[in-house]
């Protein structure tokens, strides 16, 4: 199988789907002439032209909103929000409109929009530019909130997102763009709203997604060297949230650690742990542990920033507390 970076995988998904479906167009800040702040759309403007690769003003409300409106009108826009931190400016469009129009008007309107946004910390960008607010969006019924952690999933999920009719927030991780991985040759999709076991194991279940998948896999191989076999489950999608593989795994391992990059309070760990307690109480051998970001606005200083973000060592420590 070919090796691609996460960036190349996303770029290919967009390119191939645009070639296949003339309804798809892109809009966002600096996606055209500049080639995308994270270079995901480099070369698109020259190939597809300004009609299909639209540079917008710095106006997140109307970037998200016009993409939603164009989707209502039958197009398939992909809006890029430069980073997910700026999606707060467009929050009302995403959660009050994209997520609700289909329901609120009794099924009359469809909103097949994909909003792409890179997120995550670790690049010394300071508190406003380094967030992982995925759960906030995942709170809202009506949206799909996807956050792939591998090039293969990124390409396959983005393609799947562009072939269905629900509004999607597609959260990329800014520090994964260089990550390499195997990607099937040719056309394929990855089903949306399906978790996947990324590494089988029998001693403990690690539940994670996006960048933290990388950290968790690293932790799992170090644990294996010490004779602890962790099963790593990648959620891939926060809404819909597929916990069946988690429950299945937990019934085998009886222990779980949940790893997320965002803050612990009201987070992915809280949700997954609560549901696991509800569903698998009789299988519980230890308290479910959560690994997450320290609850401060992420600082600029490199050491301070790194000390606030979850690392493989934190995952290993948590696992050792439960096995």
């Amino acid at each position, binding site marked *: 199988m070919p090796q691609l970076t996460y960036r190349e995988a996303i770029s290919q998904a967009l390119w191939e789907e645009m070639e296949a479906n003339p309804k798809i167009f892109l809009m966002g800040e600096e996606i055209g002439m500049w080639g995308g702040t994270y270079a995901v759309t480099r070369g698109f403007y020259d190939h597809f032209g300004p009609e299909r690769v639209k540079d917008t003003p710095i106006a997140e409300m*109307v970037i998200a909103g016009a993409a939603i409106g164009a989707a*209502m*009108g039958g197009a398939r826009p992909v809006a890029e929000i430069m980073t997910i931190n700026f999606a707060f400016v467009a929050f009302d469009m995403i959660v009050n409109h994209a997520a609700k129009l289909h*329901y609120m*008007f*009794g099924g009359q*309107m469809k909103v097949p929009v994909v909003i792409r946004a890179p997120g995550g910390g670790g690049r010394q960008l300071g508190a406003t530019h380094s967030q992982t607010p995925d759960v906030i969006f995942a709170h809202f019924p009506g949206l799909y909130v996807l956050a792939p952690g591998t090039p293969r999933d990124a390409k396959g999920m983005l393609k799947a997102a562009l072939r269905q009719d629900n509004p999607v927030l597609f959260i990329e991780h800014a520090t994964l763009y260089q990550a390499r991985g195997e990607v099937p040759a040719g056309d394929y999709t990855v089903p949306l709203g399906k978790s996947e076991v990324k590494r089988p194991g029998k001693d403990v279940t690690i539940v994670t997604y996006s960048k933290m998948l990388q950290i968790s896999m690293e932790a799992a191989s170090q644990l294996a060297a010490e004779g602890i076999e962790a099963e790593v489950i990648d959620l891939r999608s926060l809404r819909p949230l597929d916990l069946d593989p988690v429950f299945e795994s937990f019934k085998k391992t009886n222990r779980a650690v949940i790893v997320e990059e965002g803050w612990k309070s009201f987070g992915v760990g809280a949700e997954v742990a609560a549901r696991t307690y509800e569903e698998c109480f009789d299988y519980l051998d230890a308290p479910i542990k959560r690994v997450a970001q320290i609850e401060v606005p992420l600082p600029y200083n490199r050491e301070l920033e790194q000390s606030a973000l979850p690392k493989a060592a934190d995952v290993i420590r948590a696992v050792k507390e439960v096995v």
Partner: protein
Amino acid sequence: MLFVEKYKMEKADHLKLYKQMVLIRRLEEKSAELYQQGKIGGFLHLYIGQEAVGVGAVAAMKPQDHIITAYRDHGIAIAVGMDAGVMMAELLGKQTGCSKGKGGSMHLADVSKHFWGGHAIVGAHLPLAAGLALSFQYNHADSVIICMMGDGATNIGYFHESLNLSKVWKLPVVWMVENNQYGMGTAIERASAVSEIRQKAEGYQIPNARVDGMNVLAMKEAVGKALEHARCGEGPYFLEAITYRYRGHSMGDPERYRKPDEIKKWQEDDPIGQYNEHLAKNKIAADSELDAIESEVEAEADAAVKFAEESPNPSPEALWEHVYVSG
């Protein structure tokens, strides 16, 4: 108010507009009663006084055109031809309502008639309108969307981002402010840096005009011109209709912010009254014909209420329908 020869219209068209305005008003009166009886819940924003704006605007639309508005949407629903019973059923939250009882008064829509709602977050439908216009442009359709909004909506960020983008991208949209003098209880001059709202469009170099929103024919003509401007690839047009709402902002408005005299003054220019006078004076319609319309409307409004009241509530399963598009 002067009507001049330039409004050349068939008699049947005149009577259609007249009937729509009378029907809207009668349905609004009925809704107020139903609200007081506790049969309509939530918020209810009446269109009484503003009928000429919506009816005139919709009358100017071509079959390929579209319209979107805020929560004060009953008048637009009727003007685009939504069945009065279906509208009333939505107000009562019934399964037969246009939004299957899940939207309510503020979320009427009929996409098959190119009416995209009914939106309750002030200003939020402006970017949606820009996007719908973008879809027409992208598909090389010669459709235009009329985006109605209140004067209050011109102070929110959405307004400025949407106007700017519409100009930069030359989107086929007619921005149409219904200046009814207030946003809830706040008079324009207490909320807007310019009280001639039209001037806000100047900042984006969007051609604009003020129009008498109490005069349905003036509305129709102004919107017609605006639509043609937008249709020819010239980009957006901006209209400010001067109008007034007779009732409170919504039901239960204590109305401490205005005096009854002010309402009376505007009522002298009543859009239905002056149109009636115009039709009679110019011998376009006989008094008896206009009276006949009144009784027709009365029967239609009664039938609408009856249909709505007798319609079933949504089934319990409807709760789970349409969260996502299936398939």
